[in-house]
């Protein structure tokens, strides 16, 4: 009890030191006075009495110190002293302080920034309540794109009812294309916005609460429900000026008065979680019991497991329910289609699992930067310590204990690390702020990037770790030295021993930089290889725009042959006219229309099979389907053998398709066509429909630039129902110049045409490449930083050793050494360091290269070009870093040099 009490008062005393000192002084004065009075009373003269009183009292200062020691926190007081002293010494050497703090700041900054990314993507749960309960339910990856990754509404209903492991299951319509909402505000031109249809319980399952108004109820998704919409926070702000009274207002969306019922919270961004890099403006309810019933596989499923249900149990149950799920309940032969194709995985793994490896590599890269920074700092501190060794020896001689000196040095490194941490945090928050606004990078959750408590904790951790790392070596070295030797020495013996240690540090720094460079070199090589991939289309000089076209209601809904013919014929006429007008524009080379552009959405319709050839019981999933008009393949730049479609390929004439080479090759295996040539052969399209293969197109990278090619089939737009038409224009003029005239034609033909974006096809490619580009850019930046730090290290060491050897060099020159000889002498020292570092770094890289293999494309982790370029770059940088001091050395005036001490 009294111990705790005393601790408390000690703590108080620490903060009230000044007042307590004053009181003690007063008390001691009183003491002397009382003693003097007593002696005077006994007959001693006042002067003598006071002297004797002081003698009896003992040292005033000692009494004061003992008092402080007894009452306060001595360790803290020493610490404060050290801190004050350190601040003073650092202040006196601003060059050193600034360089040290900057180096540390850079190292800590990139570490904290990358930690924030890793934390957001890997460590932190998804931004939903009890996010660990959420699972993504999908088939294993297949070749046929989104159609094979989704479920029909019947299948969804069966799964939802048949599973007991879930609190609830929801989903969304996976085939929404960007700009699918045409919103007319006031009387202006309709503007395009991107909306996603979700099942009405979507927000309940994710436990998202509205920032304003309400979210969906079951009745919003029923037949006959009045159209409603929920706005994203960002869209509400940009399009509606953050109107606080937005709820209840109605707008014309796609011709229907749609009421805004709510605004989503700021921290919910559909795109960031489910479709990285895409901007989703609004959410609308999906009517499961309307037309979507017959659209086939359209729904992605997300479930919330009941508390306590393990993933293993969920997987087991999904396998049990899957056989009873039907693609269409009215077609019993489709029941069981989903066997083996219903697999729950944690939602988080689906969102960011693929990035795991890339993030580890990034983390490793910044870890190496931190090591290099620490090595650099150690080096600086050693150089500084060497010049201060006499100071420390003197303090030692005056009675400072070894521990006290180490403590002082550690205080210094902790102070530097603190400065570095502050600079680093500033840097990191700048970087993180920038990253969180890179909406076009197709990486998930970037909008939620921020410096949070965990990142702050990490900062403290690495700053302290770094302080220990770079502070302990010089600390021990200093404290271990022999006092007398140091006091007597002129510095050169000690210096040489120091220099060996510093050389080891610089070599390891070069080795680390070498590893970073090899890593970034390999990624760069891969990226260059990816850029050279033959995409199967030519993105340059092509651009596309979404066309708003509505069928004439008088033509019916397409459910009868007659109605279908009317609709498709009218479309054919319309698009033929549109394309003819656009192709008359100056600069236009080719024009065509498709319903899905490469690298955007896709779907599959089953597998046409060579007519008269027996179909195996189990075929792989069918090709991706594109419904196109004549001219499209030329506009997008895909080469065709055989012929393109013509405007005469209509309902009523021979059905024709164009298939891609891989698909043709696959069919040829079964059909045994002469020369395996599919052109002109007849396929059975299912339902007794004959399809003649008009042409064979080259393989297109439909889903990703660096992924594998699947199969593709093209249908003529006058023979099949297309999705949203994308007018594609190839021209000799830049897209920006074409946009105005193309939009004018579109608007002339349809006054309701939205102000859609005329988007260069290259943008699609860039978007698909953005994660790879992003990682490569970061790793390259880190490698550059590592190289810079290593160069600084070499430069620092060589200049230091030149300074130290000034006299020696002076003697050599006095004895007749030429400037060239001196330069060679200094450079050979530099190169020795570089060679050691490069050899070690290369060996380490060869050993570690396997880690990056998964991120490489068509590049060996032991790529000779990369390794030799890295070696060259490192030599060049080392040469430059060493040449500056070497040049300085060669310009020394022998006489001046000899006289320096």
């Amino acid at each position, binding site marked *: 009890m009294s111990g705790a009490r005393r601790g408390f*008062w000690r703590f108080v005393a620490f903060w009230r030191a000044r007042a307590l000192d004053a009181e*003690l002084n007063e*008390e001691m004065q009183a*003491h002397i006075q*009382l*003693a003097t009075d007593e002696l005077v009373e006994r007959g001693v003269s006042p002067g003598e009495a006071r002297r004797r009183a002081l003698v009896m009292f*003992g040292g005033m200062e000692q009494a004061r110190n003992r*008092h402080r020691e007894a009452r306060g926190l001595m360790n803290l007081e020493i610490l404060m002293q050290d801190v004050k002293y350190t601040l003073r010494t650092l202040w006196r050497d601003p060059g050193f302080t600034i360089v040290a703090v900057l180096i540390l700041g850079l190292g800590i900054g990139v570490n904290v920034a990358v930690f924030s990314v890793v934390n957001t993507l890997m460590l932190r749960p998804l931004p939903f309540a009890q996010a660990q309960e959420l699972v993504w339910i999908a088939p294993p990856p297949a070749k046929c794109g989104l159609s094979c990754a989704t479920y029909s509404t019947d299948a969804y209903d069966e799964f939802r009812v048949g599973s007991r492991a879930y609190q609830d299951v929801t989903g969304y319509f996976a085939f929404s294309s960007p700009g699918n909402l045409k919103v007319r505000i006031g009387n202006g031109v309709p503007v395009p916005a991107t909306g996603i249809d979700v099942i009405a319980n979507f927000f309940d399952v994710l436990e998202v609460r509205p920032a304003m108004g309400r979210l969906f109820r079951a009745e919003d998704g029923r037949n006959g429900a009045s159209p409603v919409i929920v706005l994203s926070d960002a869209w509400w702000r940009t399009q509606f000026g953050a109107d606080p009274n937005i709820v209840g207002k109605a707008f014309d969306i796609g011709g229907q008065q749609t009421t805004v019922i709510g605004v989503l919270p700021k921290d919910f961004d559909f795109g960031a979680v489910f479709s990285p890099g895409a901007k989703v403006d609004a959410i609308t309810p999906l009517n499961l019991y309307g037309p979507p019933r017959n659209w086939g596989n359209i729904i992605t499923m997300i479930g919330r497991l009941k508390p306590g249900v393990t993933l293993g149990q969920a997987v087991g149950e999904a396998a049990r329910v899957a056989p009873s799920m039907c693609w269409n309940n009215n077609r019993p032969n489709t029941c069981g289609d989903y066997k083996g194709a219903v697999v729950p995985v944690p939602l988080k793994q689906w969102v960011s699992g693929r990035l795991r490896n890339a993030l580890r590599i990034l983390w490793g890269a910044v870890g190496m930067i931190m090591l290099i920074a620490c090595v650099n700092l150690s080096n600086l501190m050693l150089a500084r310590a060497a010049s201060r060794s006499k100071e420390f020896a003197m303090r030692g001689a005056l009675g400072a204990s070894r521990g006290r000196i180490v403590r002082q040095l550690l205080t210094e490194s902790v102070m530097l690390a603190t400065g570095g941490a502050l600079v680093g945090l500033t840097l990191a928050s700048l970087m993180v702020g920038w990253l969180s606004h890179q909406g076009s990078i197709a990486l998930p959750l970037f909008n939620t990037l921020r410096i949070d408590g965990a990142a702050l904790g990490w900062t403290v951790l690495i700053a302290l770790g770094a302080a220990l790392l770079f502070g302990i070596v010089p600390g021990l070295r200093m404290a271990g030295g022999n006092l007398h030797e140091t006091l007597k020495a002129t510095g050169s013996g000690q210096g040489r021993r120091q220099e060996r240690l510093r050389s080891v540090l610089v070599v390891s720094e070069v080795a680390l930089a070498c590893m970073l460079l090899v890593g970034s070199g390999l990624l760069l090589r891969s990226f260059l290889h990816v850029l050279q991939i033959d995409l199967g289309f030519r993105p340059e000089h092509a651009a596309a725009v979404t066309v708003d076209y509505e069928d004439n209601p008088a033509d019916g809904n397409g459910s009868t042959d007659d109605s279908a013919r009317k609709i498709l014929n009218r479309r054919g006429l319309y698009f033929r006219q549109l394309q003819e007008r656009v192709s008359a524009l100056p600069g236009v080379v080719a024009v065509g229309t498709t319903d899905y552009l490469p690298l955007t959405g896709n779907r599959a319709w089953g597998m046409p099979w060579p007519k008269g050839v027996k179909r195996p019981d189990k075929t792989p999933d069918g090709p991706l389907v594109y419904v196109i008009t004549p001219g499209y393949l030329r506009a997008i730049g895909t080469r065709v053998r055989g012929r393109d479609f013509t405007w005469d390929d209509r309902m009523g004439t021979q059905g024709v398709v164009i298939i891609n080479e891989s698909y043709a090759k696959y069919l040829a295996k079964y059909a045994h066509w002469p020369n395996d040539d599919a052109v002109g052969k007849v396929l059975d399209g299912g339902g007794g429909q004959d399809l003649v293969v008009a042409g064979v197109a080259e393989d297109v990278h439909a889903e990703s630039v660096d992924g594998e090619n699947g199969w593709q089939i093209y249908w003529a737009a006058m023979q099949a129902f297309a999705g949203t038409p994308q007018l594609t224009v190839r021209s000799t003029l830049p897209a920006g110049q074409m946009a105005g005239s193309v939009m004018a034609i579109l608007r002339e033909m349809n006054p309701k045409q939205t102000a859609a974006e005329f988007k260069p096809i290259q943008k699609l490619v860039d978007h698909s490449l953005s994660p790879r580009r992003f990682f490569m850019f970061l790793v390259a930046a880190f490698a550059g930083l590592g190289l810079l730090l290593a160069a600084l290290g070499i430069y620092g060491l060589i200049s230091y050793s030149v300074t130290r050897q000034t006299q020696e060099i002076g003697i050599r020159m006095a004895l007749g050494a030429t400037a060239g000889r001196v330069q060679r002498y200094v450079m050979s020292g530099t190169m020795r360091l570089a060679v050691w570092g490069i050899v070690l770094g290369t060996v380490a890289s060869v050993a570690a290269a396997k880690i990056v293999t998964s991120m490489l494309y068509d590049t060996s982790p032991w790529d000779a070009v990369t390794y030799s370029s890295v070696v060259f770059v490192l030599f060049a940088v080392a040469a430059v870093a060493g040449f500056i001091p070497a040049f300085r050395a060669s310009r020394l005036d022998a006489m001046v040099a000899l006289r320096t001490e």
Partner: protein
Amino acid sequence: MSPEKLDLLQGTLDLMVLQTLAVMGSMHGYGIARRIEQVSADEVLLNQGTIYASLVRLEQRGWIGSEWGVSGNNRKAKFYSITAAGRKKLAEDAEYWGRLTGVMDRMLRMKTGGETA
């Protein structure tokens, strides 16, 4: 009287201060120091200044209290007095010292061969 004064053992000064205050009532630092010197017949080596470290330690533990006041010859000084907790502590420590000195006494009277006088 031995030629050299006795060095104070760790903690003994605290006990002396407590005992002095228990017997003499409220006293200032100088008075306590003088009293200890007198009682020990100047056998204890005491820099009077060291008394203040002891006083602050005892006060922080709540065994003594303090108050500024005026001395007999009209000097302002800080007066210390023992608290109830201090008295309890004093009793405990005095008992401990009694036992310890008894043991030490017996140990030092021990003769070679193990027989005690």
